[in-house]
């Protein structure tokens, strides 16, 4: 035990952290304090996701219809595989981290360096994957029409396959005037971000193709989206349609309820920020190990403390994975 105690000059000073309540050093104890409070923060987010989901239980997007992409496999629907890969990367980087802690206990400096290095690489791969996942989600794939009530209408052919709006929308030459300075010097912002197709173009294309149907955001008892008949589809699109949605942002979401996108951005973003800061902290500790700080101190407890944080990030991801992608 003596070998792992960091000599911080506070030995014997009860109020200076010299005592070891619960047999944990001051730093480790504080890290556990932080982890408990951060765990409660994340639970608050995930529980509020559950709250919103229960509120709109019959109109919530089905996750494995949303996240179907794998890099370099364009157009191949592969639900879950990529996020499973990300989970394994994070768990593996947790393993190398705990191996680094173990090597630290045995004062094997070179092993600690290598294991820390692999941990950092794993973390970087994870953050990169998450950025890619975000980009894919923001870009969207099929496109949809949003109704006046903020509901999403998606398009299917009669075989039940999804159809992208780009495949049927008609090009209507619109007279779009550029704003000029002689008409006033103030720039008037557009009300929405412009999409590739306008609502009129999608409507014209939909009416011209008899094999297209509309799928609503609502789910039936079996958890399948309700598909409207051709007549009902036309009526729905003409009466309720308002604007075209491509991809997702904080206000509109072509996959379904906008709250789904909001929570996705917020929770995976907050988690991704934790991974990012974890990578930064790991890099700092990595260089400290290289220059021999802990070798001189006679204890690698700092590695153990950042290890706790890193495992916590992994722990949170396990829950995010379940509640966003599986359940």
């Amino acid at each position, binding site marked *: 035990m003596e070998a792992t105690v960091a000599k911080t000059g506070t030995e014997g000073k009860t109020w200076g952290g010299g005592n070891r309540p619960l047999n944990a050093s001051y730093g480790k104890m504080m890290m556990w304090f932080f982890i408990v409070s951060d765990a409660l923060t994340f639970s608050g987010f995930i529980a509020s996701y559950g709250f919103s989901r229960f509120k709109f239980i019959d109109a919530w997007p089905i996750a494995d219809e949303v996240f179907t992409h794998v890099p370099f496999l364009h157009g191949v629907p592969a639900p879950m595989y990529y996020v499973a890969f990300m989970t394994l990367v994070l768990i593996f980087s947790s393993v190398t981290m705990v191996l680094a802690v173990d090597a630290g206990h045995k004062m094997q400096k070179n092993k600690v360096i290598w294991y820390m290095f692999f941990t950092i690489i794993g973390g970087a791969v994870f953050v990169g994957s998450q950025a890619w996942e975000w980009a894919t989600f923001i870009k969207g794939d099929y496109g949809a029409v949003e109704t006046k009530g903020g509901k999403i209408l998606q398009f299917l052919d009669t075989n039940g396959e999804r159809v992208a709006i780009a495949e049927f929308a008609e090009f209507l030459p619109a007279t779009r005037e550029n704003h000029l300075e002689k008409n006033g010097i103030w720039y008037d912002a557009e009300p929405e971000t412009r999409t590739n197709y306008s609502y009129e173009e999608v409507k014209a294309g939909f009416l011209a193709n008899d094999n297209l149907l509309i799928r609503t955001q609502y789910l039936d008892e079996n*958890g399948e989206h309700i598909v409207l008949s051709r007549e009902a589809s036309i009526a729905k699109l003409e009466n309720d349609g308002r604007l075209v949605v491509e991809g997702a942002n904080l206000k509109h979401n072509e996959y379904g309820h906008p709250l789904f996108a909001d929570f996705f951005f917020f929770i995976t973003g907050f988690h991704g920020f934790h991974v990012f800061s974890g990578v930064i902290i790991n890099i700092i500790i990595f260089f400290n190990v290289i220059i021999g700080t802990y070798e001189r101190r006679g204890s690698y407890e700092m590695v153990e403390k950042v290890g706790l944080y890193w495992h916590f990030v992994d722990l949170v991801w396990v829950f995010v994975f379940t509640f966003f992608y599986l*359940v």
Partner: protein
Amino acid sequence: MAHEHKLEIFRGAWKFKSNVSKIWGVFTFLCIVTAIEVVLGIIKPEMLTETRFLAMKLLNWIFIILTLVKAYYITWDFMHMRDETSSLRRAVVWTAVFLICYLILILLIEGDYIYEVYKNNYVKFDF
């Protein structure tokens, strides 16, 4: 410190010779659990999605239970909770588990209530 690690998991059913081999053992176990989750998530067996227990699909219960199992082994073996004093373990785990269960309970009941209001009443305001 190495000799102080508790080297057995599954209540002593699986003992390891060293801490390093225990880490790899736990990693293998976590990979298997994740693989089961992913396979179930892709196949979605009819039997499990149609049966409900306490208003939730059996499949979702399986996912949540497997997640808690993974969380247990991450905390106990990767975060060395197994080697800490029981008082530290309880201070961390009981506090979090109690507060999180309470939060989930009230939020989900409230969410379900609002859903019922939307569905059965004439309130359609999207708040």
